[in-house]
């Protein structure tokens, strides 16, 4: 019986290899583990183990400090999220975006606010003082932290994990189970997401999970449902806009191919879906124009400046040499950055429009989001998680470059993580990621593996330098952050070129 099943597996492997687009010879240790699972007929247990390990890592990280822990007067992102729960629980809906208490204004779209309301409602039943109006500002306790952390984990499990399961089942449907499981494990232990959501404290995975759900629908040709999910993602966090040119081009490209009436019908369907979904999300504020403008003004805070702190994008890098912010005023900068961003994502959207295949949709999402990250206005260092999402999804299609990108992305958030006391989990998860994906570089071109080694060497030496010569240095108060941003910006530009090139190759096939 055992022999029979084995033989059966092998034959099915052969057939699936033949049909798959390219045969992957994976040197990843995760792949070996997946093979072990497969050989021992643990296909059903494997996913549970993967979820268990992923949750264990997340929970271990979440025991550490969060953004702004015990640092009055303003605290950090944790307090922002907690305050939004307090705000949504105690204020009428109309006032959510116009409340002027000067304490962490709500600047995320409505779905975040609704989710906050649900979290606050449940939390309020457990302990009213966590979200008491005004008196809870800056409230910190072990129980409150535990509750907040569990909301993140629960939402992540409900939205992100499920979406990844569905994605791997679709993306690797023509390959064998081991590939699918390897991808699942790697995606779930991607360090950036764990560190930011479970360490720093944010709900990025809800937005990212909704985006993946929309991709899942697109993979199933359920374009209407997919756009609903995409609008929900947009409604949770406006940063999902980074993907919108790719999604738009993909859907438009597909519509065009359906003949004149088919195209119009499809566009009407999609357009009304988008309007309806966003309309429902924004319904409470859509009575008067000033209300809507107030919401939009909060969500797109152009007044905040070209970029925040040090972020590994083009503007911050250029700023080291040319002081852009002193040369131009904000309006000019907005126009300029918008124009360059559009220019940067133009090639990939055009390719997607011309050949809207499912594979190039993901490549297009990488390229547009990376263009936004590199060139758009007001980018946070955490926004690198957005291009990191499609790159993580493509981890087995581009194992070496994907691994390299995630390494750089995690490294680019190091200044933030250091500030918050998350150095230990950063080192562990980063080391684990590098080690688990190191096998991907076997047999890659010398240029690539050389780049990977150089990258790791630079990361290592920067950390060592910072460890040996701690800040503050009198002359260069933020030398390490600047160096980090410069190096990573250069890397990200290279990645942008690479993924555009790859998309072009997809296009030519």
């Amino acid at each position, binding site marked *: *019986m*055992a022999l029979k099943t084995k033989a059966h597996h092998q034959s099915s492997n052969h057939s699936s290899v033949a049909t798959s687009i390219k045969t992957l010879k994976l040197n990843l*240790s995760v792949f070996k583990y997946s093979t*072990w699972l497969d050989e*021992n*007929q*643990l296909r*059903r*247990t494997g996913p*549970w*183990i993967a979820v*268990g*390990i992923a*949750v*264990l*890592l997340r*929970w*271990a*990280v979440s*025991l*550490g400090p969060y953004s702004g822990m015990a640092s009055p007067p303003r605290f950090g992102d944790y307090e922002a999220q907690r305050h939004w729960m307090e705000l949504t629980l105690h204020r009428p809906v109309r006032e959510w975006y116009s409340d002027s208490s000067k304490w962490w204004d709500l600047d995320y779209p409505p779905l975040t606010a609704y989710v906050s309301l649900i979290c606050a409602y449940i939390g309020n039943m457990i302990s009213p003082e966590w979200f008491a109006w005004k008196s809870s500002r800056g409230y910190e306790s*072990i*129980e409150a932290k*535990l509750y907040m952390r569990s909301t993140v984990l629960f939402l992540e499990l409900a939205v992100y994990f499920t979406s990844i399961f569905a994605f791997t089942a679709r993306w690797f449907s023509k390959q064998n189970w081991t590939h699918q499981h390897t991808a699942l494990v790697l995606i779930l232990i991607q360090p950036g997401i764990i560190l930011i959501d479970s360490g720093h404290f944010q709900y990025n995975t809800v937005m990212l999970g909704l985006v993946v759900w929309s991709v899942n629908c697109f993979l199933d040709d359920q374009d209407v449902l997919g756009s609903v999910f995409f609008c929900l993602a947009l409604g949770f966090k406006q940063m999902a806009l980074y993907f919108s040119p790719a999604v738009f081009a993909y859907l438009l490209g597909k519509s065009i191919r359906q003949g004149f009436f088919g195209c119009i019908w499809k566009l009407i369907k999609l357009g009304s879906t988008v309007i309806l979904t966003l309309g429902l999300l924004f319904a409470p504020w859509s009575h008067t124009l000033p209300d809507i403008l107030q919401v939009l003004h909060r969500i797109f805070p152009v007044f905040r400046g070209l970029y925040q702190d040090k972020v590994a994008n083009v503007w911050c890098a250029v700023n080291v040499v040319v002081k852009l912010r002193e040369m131009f005023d904000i309006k000019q900068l907005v126009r300029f950055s918008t124009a360059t961003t559009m220019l940067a994502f133009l090639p990939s959207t055009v390719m997607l429009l011309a050949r809207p295949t499912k594979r190039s949709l993901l490549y297009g999402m990488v390229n547009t989001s990376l263009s936004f990250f590199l060139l758009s206005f007001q980018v946070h260092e955490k926004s690198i998680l957005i291009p990191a999402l499609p790159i993580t999804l493509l981890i087995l299609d581009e194992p070496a470059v994907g691994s390299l990108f995630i390494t750089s992305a995690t490294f680019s958030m190091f200044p933030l993580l250091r500030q918050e006391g998350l150095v*230990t*989990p950063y*080192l*562990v*998860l980063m*080391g*684990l990621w590098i*080690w688990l994906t190191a096998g991907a570089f076997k047999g890659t071109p010398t240029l690539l593996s050389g780049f990977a080694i150089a990258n790791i060497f630079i990361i290592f030496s920067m950390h060592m330098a910072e460890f040996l010569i701690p800040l503050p240095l009198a002359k260069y108060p933020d030398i390490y952050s600047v160096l980090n941003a410069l190096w990573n910006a250069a890397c990200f530009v290279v990645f942008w070129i690479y993924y555009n090139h790859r998309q072009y190759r997809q296009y030519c096939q």
Partner: protein
Amino acid sequence: MQTSLLVISIALKVLLYPTYHSTDFEVHRNWLAITHSLPLSKWYIENTSEWTLDYPPFFAWFEKFLAFFAAKVDPKIVQVDNLNYDTWITVYFQRTTVIVTELVLFWALQRLLKVMGNRPLQKILNWSLMLNPGLLMVDNMHFQYNGFLYGILVHSLVDAKQGNLLRSGILFAALLNFKHIFLYISLPYFAFLLRAYCFENSGNSIRARSWISAFRPFHLLALGLSVIAVFALSLGPFVALDQLPQLAGRLFPFKRGLCHSYWAANFWAIYSFVDRVLIIVVSKFPLLGQYLNLSLDPSALAATTRGLVGDTAFGVLPTVTAQHTLILTLLLQIPGFVAVFRRPTFDRFIGSIVLSAFASFLAGWHVHEKAILLCTVTMTVALANQLGATPNSGAGALADLRSSSSALTPRDVRAFMIVSLAGYIGLWPLFFTREETPIKVLITVLWFIIVGSGLDQCIPKPLNASPSSSAIGKSMLRYFTTLERLYVFGCVPVQLYVNVIHEALFGLETLAFLPLMITSVYAAVGVIYGWLLYSASYFSPSKVALDKKKKLR
């Protein structure tokens, strides 16, 4: 080298740095301070902190060695009067020393792999030991140095397997001077070394008249002198200082009660539980009590309800004294002892070590719940040894009778899995903070699933199994009996009640001892069952029959 194992275990253990650490953390910090700042003569006298040094001298020297680095990291760590000092640098330092010294275990496991045969299944056993939830919880969360100590034990066992009996004996003697809990398994060591090293060992029992001719006096001398030398090195200075009684008083605090702060999962947990039930029965139905001739000791009522450290008083059942537990422990160890003495093979030796560990854990005086590690670690080595004797699936023709007699059976695996599950769940109450709950649950469940599925491979799959059998039939639980499956799945509702529902119903204050009692009793049932199962496997008639067959040849 199992680099993957090393990397993953270090990664996980470093991630556990911010978890809750118990008073044992302060205990060890205090010992760092005592051994570093005070002269040898004060080590076992010093009592500024309530956590006095109560490990044998080698461990004190080990602490002194660590304190050398501690003083470099932060001199405040090694100040005797700097009580409850746990800055993050102290935590990081001490937690790191645990991980670094645990490399001794990793090294021992690599040797184990080499000696017992380097097969995938043995690698799984290595993983299971290095990433053992018991060690993770006790060492890397609660805070102790068991990984290091069990590393020495595994080294000693590997030496015994290799036939380096003298080195094995010396290592064990040293181990006893690191932590005296290993006295629990000293009887089989004594029997094995005496019989296998000090007598001509043909693998068979010796007839009465050839005892003298088989005796090897020089071996006895060598072994005796080395062991005495180890003890002299450890205790000598304190004998010279005339502090031996003081040291002994610290090491063996018989003033403590029968049960630890919460009951370890052993006989006495069941005994105390029965007593609790009888107290309720007798006080609610006095007539029934009179009929059964049970009387209630009123002084015991208040004492045991909270189960605090101190003398455990029983309300209805007779009191158990230290002598009783000692006699019972020895009695339970005798069969294994005799088996080793009759035929000193390594298979019998390692099995009887497991049985001794069980005997001491189940019947000992003031047993800590952490002592379950002694059972599970030695059981892992025993399983690895049995695996080594299991014929390769391909080379079945070569399998001789000897190997099949000690081959791994489903029964051993079941015993191992159930004891581990019960024992590790018995460790859960060490972590009463809610933040740690997901971690302790996840590491235990993940370990159970991965190791269970892994060990499942060593059991040959039945050829006639119907492909459409149920989910259980395909899972790792397929060899478990219905009762065992019930026990495994029963853990879920029981622990759900203990960790979540109880608090929601009664809060933290009322009936605080109830969840602890439920955990202990439930775990005790599993441990005792696993012990019986393992004993049955060890003394199984098939083995005896095979031995007889061999003798006939």
